[in-house]
């Protein structure tokens, strides 16, 4: 029988600490019963209106005329709001000091889907009817629709402080390239990816007294929603409260891009004095929001004949879309991950953000890391093909050394490198060598079906690279009956953060997890928070929760010392565990946590406390391209086996073995879910998910009819995931490591495996030309190219 965690009445028990132990997802049973509430499920106040966004149909145009008289004449239509109706600042750019993202277009639109007006009416159908009557006249202007066009036109989004390209350099790459025995050069592209969170963007705004507003928003960043709503409405932030019940997935897509829709809901509520909900349907969501940045790269690399990398020069250009959003931070992370796991002795990498007439691209799991890493993996795969080497061996040869002696290209010492260990353990457990030999034998005997195997190591830097963001807060409240309410600054989007934070809190107070209720995230409980992003949710909030609990425990300890009749000097020995408070020296004297908290209340001791954490000793100097942007690195490895049809280009993933480093896992079942889910999402980015636009910049793939994320049948038939054992990490919350993003990049192993299979259609040492994403068509083209290589 499954414990119904959040529903059982509090009772005393001798449960073990929930830390480092398997657990169900804190909302799991509520998910299966429809009891879990999302923004669109909240009971509506009487009079709630629907807000409908009118979006630009043009990629680039001047707005000549805006007229809403006919729409407003419809009964039940309460408002049609344009830029001029914004009482505060018409800008929602997430970067301080950059004002390049009007909430509603003023006199120019820069992409299809840009918000132009908000219709507020009594039903969605009425909104659509009214929207058809709003007259917006455009004069089309020339549009720039791709990185290639942006490069031709010199269209970029320069950094607001450092207008030149971001450049990181070490050694003498030019001289080393000249001297290299083997040289490889080329270009590659990775595509956009829609977040395809199952719950689309949703916000509900309700006016309160004194012009204040309360919002329920599906956002990873309630504090930023609060800030943007305050600015748009011209209010102090103290007049805006934002609450996040939970999200139905986010993956970065609700880090900055929930704020505009929340601001529109607030604008509508202010204008009509009625509650307003803005909810996007799937097509609107896909058309109006940004995606993972497509990246273009040009590279030149030099190798020794044995596969050791001597030099790498690479230039990256990302497609930022029409405005800054987080494009520069994403580019930074791409550049920081150009090394992935490998020591680059001579290197120069540089990057710029292209400005195109597309929705502003945004954060997405990995945040540029996958795009940067893809380039160096492409280089290594090509080198292995050219040299006739096992690509796994080429990777092993180039690892950062352990014990640490190497620094990354940006100057951070690579400490605690677990890849040599992961490599050895995974090669053995996955039987890589035997299977690779079997696959080669299979391929020799099979004409139209070929198999391939690929290995992918990952090193991923953990911290917001914008250093000040690495802070978090918590508010822990204990009631007289010993039950606990836990508030922290992180948001729950399915990743299991609440499950982990509850374990941290229950462990610190020594109470059963069922006695801790994790509250919805709210800006009036924990203020000035950072986004739940960059895989940092547990690292940062966990420390803050722990700090708050420790404050409370110390207060309670004094009360307990009195009740247990132990000396003040001995008080440090009092143990909080299993819902009881005791001292090992006096085992016969113990009290329940509830008895203690009741006594504390009567003794006039405060039973609520805040906790706060900031990551120490990190920073990066962009001008110099040097620093320590990351608190630590997370590591992992994957072996992927695929089968490819040379007739249709279809493929199937036959088996995946993953060994991933999460330190001492806070909750192993949750971490495993992150590893598996991240891998499959990466597989989608690299294989089936293809974002396509037409010649006018309109999205062709705006629903799951045409945009294909992996389905159940695309998951590997045989999926073996292990967490690295005996691997605690220094100076993190209970020795754990971040897990949200790093596994995403393990899926690049599928590309290596596909290349292995495709190459088998050609003669030995066939160099594969495989586009990304590797759709059936891309694979069939690669197969045809391999088949045409002369023997």
């Amino acid at each position, binding site marked *: 029988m*499954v414990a119904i965690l959040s529903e059982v009445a509090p009772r005393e028990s001798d449960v073990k600490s929930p830390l480092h132990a398997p657990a*169900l*997802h804190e*909302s*799991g*049973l*509520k*998910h*299966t*019963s*429809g*009891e*879990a509430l*999302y923004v*669109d499920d909240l*009971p509506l106040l009487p009079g709630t209106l629907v807000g409908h966004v009118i979006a630009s149909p043009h990629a680039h145009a001047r707005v000549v005329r805006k007229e809403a008289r006919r729409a407003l004449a419809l009964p039940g239509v309460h408002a049609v709001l344009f830029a001029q109706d914004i009482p505060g600042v018409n800008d929602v750019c997430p970067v301080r000091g950059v004002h390049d993202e009007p909430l509603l277009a003023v006199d120019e639109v820069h992409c299809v889907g840009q918000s132009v007006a908000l219709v507020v009416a009594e039903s969605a159908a009425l909104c*659509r009817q009214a929207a058809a009557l709003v007259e917006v006249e455009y004069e089309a202007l020339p549009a720039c629709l791709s990185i290639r066009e942006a490069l031709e036109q010199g269209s970029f989004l320069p950094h607001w402080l450092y207008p030149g390209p971001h450049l990181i350099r070490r050694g003498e790459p030019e001289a080393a390239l000249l001297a290299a025995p083997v040289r490889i050069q080329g270009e590659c592209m990775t595509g956009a990816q829609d977040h395809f*969170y*199952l719950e689309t963007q949703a916000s509900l705004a309700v006016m309160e007294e004194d012009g204040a507003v309360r919002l329920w928003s599906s956002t990873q960043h309630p504090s930023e929603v609060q800030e943007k709503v305050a600015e748009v409405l011209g209010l102090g932030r103290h007049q805006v409260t934002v609450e996040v019940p*939970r999200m*139905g*997935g986010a993956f970065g897509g609700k880090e900055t891009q929930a704020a505009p829709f929340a601001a529109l809901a607030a604008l509508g509520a202010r204008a009509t004095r009625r509650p307003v909900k803005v909810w996007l*349907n*799937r097509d609107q969501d896909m058309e109006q929001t940004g995606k993972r940045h497509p990246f273009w790269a040009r590279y030149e690399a030099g190798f020794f004949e044995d596969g050791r990398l001597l030099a790498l020069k690479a230039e990256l250009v990302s497609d930022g879309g029409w405005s800054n959003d987080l494009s520069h931070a994403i580019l930074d992370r791409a550049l920081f991950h150009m090394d992935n796991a490998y020591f680059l002795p001579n290197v120069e990498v540089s990057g710029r953000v292209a400005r195109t007439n597309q929705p502003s691209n945004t954060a997405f799991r990995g945040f540029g890391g996958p795009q940067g890493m893809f380039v160096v993996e492409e280089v290594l795969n090509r080198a292995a093909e050219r040299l006739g080497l096992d690509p796994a061996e080429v990777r092993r040869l180039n690892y950062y050394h352990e014990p640490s002696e190497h620094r990354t290209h940006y100057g951070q010492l690579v400490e605690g490198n677990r890849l040599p260990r992961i490599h050895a353990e995974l090669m053995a457990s996955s039987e890589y060598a035997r299977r690779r030999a079997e696959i080669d034998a299979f391929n020799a*005997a099979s*004409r*139209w079906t070929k198999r391939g195997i690929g290995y992918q190591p990952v090193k991923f830097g953990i911290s917001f690279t914008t250093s000040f963001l690495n802070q978090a807060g918590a508010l822990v409240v204990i009631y007289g009956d010993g039950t606990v309410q836990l508030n922290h600054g992180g948001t729950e*989007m*399915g990743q*299991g953060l609440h499950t982990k934070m509850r374990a941290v809190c229950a462990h610190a107070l020594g109470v059963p997890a069922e006695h801790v209720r994790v509250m919805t995230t709210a800006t009036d409980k924990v203020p000035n928070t950072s986004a739940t992003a960059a895989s940092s949710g547990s690292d940062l909030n966990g420390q803050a929760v722990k700090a708050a609990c420790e404050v409370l425990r110390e207060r309670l300890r004094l009360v307990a010392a009195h009740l247990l009749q132990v000396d003040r000097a001995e008080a440090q020995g009092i143990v909080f565990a299993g819902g009881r408070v005791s001292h090992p020296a006096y085992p016969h004297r113990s009290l329940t946590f509830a008895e203690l908290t009741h006594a504390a209340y009567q003794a006039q001791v405060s039973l609520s406390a805040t906790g706060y954490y900031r990551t120490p000793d990190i920073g990066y100097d962009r001008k110099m391209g040097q620093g320590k942007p990351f608190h630590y690195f997370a590591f992992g490895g994957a072996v992927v086996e695929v089968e*490819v049809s040379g*007739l*249709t*280009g*279809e493929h*199937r993933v036959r088996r995946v073995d993953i060994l991933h480093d999460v330190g001492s896992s806070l909750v192993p079942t949750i971490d*495993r*879910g992150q590893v*598996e*889910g*991240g891998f*499959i*999402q990466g597989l989608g980015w690299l294989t089936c998910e*293809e974002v396509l636009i037409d010649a006018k910049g309109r999205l*062709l793939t705006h*629903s*799951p*009819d*045409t945009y*294909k*994320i*992996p*389905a*159940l*049948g*695309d*998951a590997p038939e045989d*999926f073996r995931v292990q967490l690295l054992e005996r691997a605690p990490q220094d100076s993190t919350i209970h020795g754990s490591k971040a897990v949200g993003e790093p596994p995403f990049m393990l899926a690049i192993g599928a590309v290596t495996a596909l290349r292995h299979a495709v190459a088998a259609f050609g003669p030995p040492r066939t160099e594969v030309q495989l586009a990304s994403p590797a759709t*059936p*068509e891309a694979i069939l083209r690669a197969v045809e190219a391999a088949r045409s290589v002369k023997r």
Partner: protein
Amino acid sequence: MDRLRFYLNDRLVEESGLSPTTTVLRYLRDRAHLTGTKEGCAEGDCGACTVAVLEEDGKGAPVLRAINSCLLLLPMVQGKRVYTVEALKEGGRYHLVQEALARELGSQCGYCTPGVTMALLEACHREDFNEPWKLDAQMCGNLCRCTGYRPIRDAAARVAGLRPADRFARALAETKPEPMELAYTAGPQRFFTPATLEALWDVLDAHPEARFVVGGTDLSLEVTKRFAEPPLLVSLEALRVLRTLEPRAGGHRVGATVTLTELEDYSRATCPPLERMARYFGARQIKNRATVGGNLCTASPIGDLAPVLISLGAEAVVLSRAGERRMALEDFFVDYRRTALRRGELLAFVDVPAQPAGARAIAYKVSKRRELDISSVSAGFRVVVDEQGRVREARLAYGGMSARPARASRAEAALVGQPWTEASVEAVLPLLDEDFTPRTDHRGSDWYRAQVAKNLLRGFFLETLSEPAPRLQERHAATVQVR
């Protein structure tokens, strides 16, 4: 009946005044305040809105089916029992499918989970879970963006076919679906579900502009995506004769309102090429509603069932008050999304003839994603090889290669009389470029379609060398199963 009448979580509901094109999903969320059921796409491509419907199968037996409520219009559940995710918990206890899913951590964000849960509920009450591939086929209609599916697969394996004695088992045993017959008007919209052909002809005489609907998996998109309000729909769902599915003259008679689920089950033992197409036709939830006639009458250029049925020599049987007429199925498609049906006529049956001795036949569907996708290219091939090993007849039908499903007449003609060898196949492949000029769109380029069209024929030759109508392997990398 002139009111909407159905059972929602075992409580009788009667409604009037609501638009007949209100979807069950919007009804649940907006009117019944049952918000467990989620809207993820409103087009049947994600499964988040899955509900369970207790209805009659083709033989009149009660079954519990997982169905996408986003494409289900209210009159389509007339007389039926609709269950939502809120119905699972009984007496404060979670249902075993809920426990299984939670125990496997089969939910992360939880938004797809109500739909996953309802698909599991159908799995748990199915009697035919005898083969492991059926798990994937059962669950592929539920997109999950978080878990990577491994825990969902494991939960499905745990509950499939358990058939617990729950409220659904009781309802299956104790209740009987009520008549679907309906003549409903709300504002400017009307919806008819006649119970007899005679009643149907009367409706058509009175309303010659009426449009037919059965499963609604295609037509409802006009409502959910283009926000259309069709003024007059006539459902054929209550006409039992159209659900005929039986052997006939050595072949098969397939009624127009036979669902793809029924067709798949039937053809598994009797017609492997048809089963191969039915397997990948769509997700379980879609196949539970989509019908043979609906797929053919929408006359899509891809028309997954059309190529295979054409290749098997099927005939369309068309009925009207005046009587019956028959035509070769390829002549049923006259142009892009246009059929040979005249006013007052309906497609009643597809007759698949007995296959001649020496026939080799397979159907193929190639799409970007194996499950739950629309074809880039689909094909149905049948060649009849005589005792001397020469091709006596060739029927090579393709979807996705031109404005309508069509045969490759030049390639077919060139193949007849030739020995059935790889050299003969290779020799006719260039003729496919004369037979077809495919388009480039988001599902594939003209190059890809042309190349795959040829490769499918190559694969067909190799696949049928030893076995005239090979079955699908349980697990396979690709549509064409050759080494």
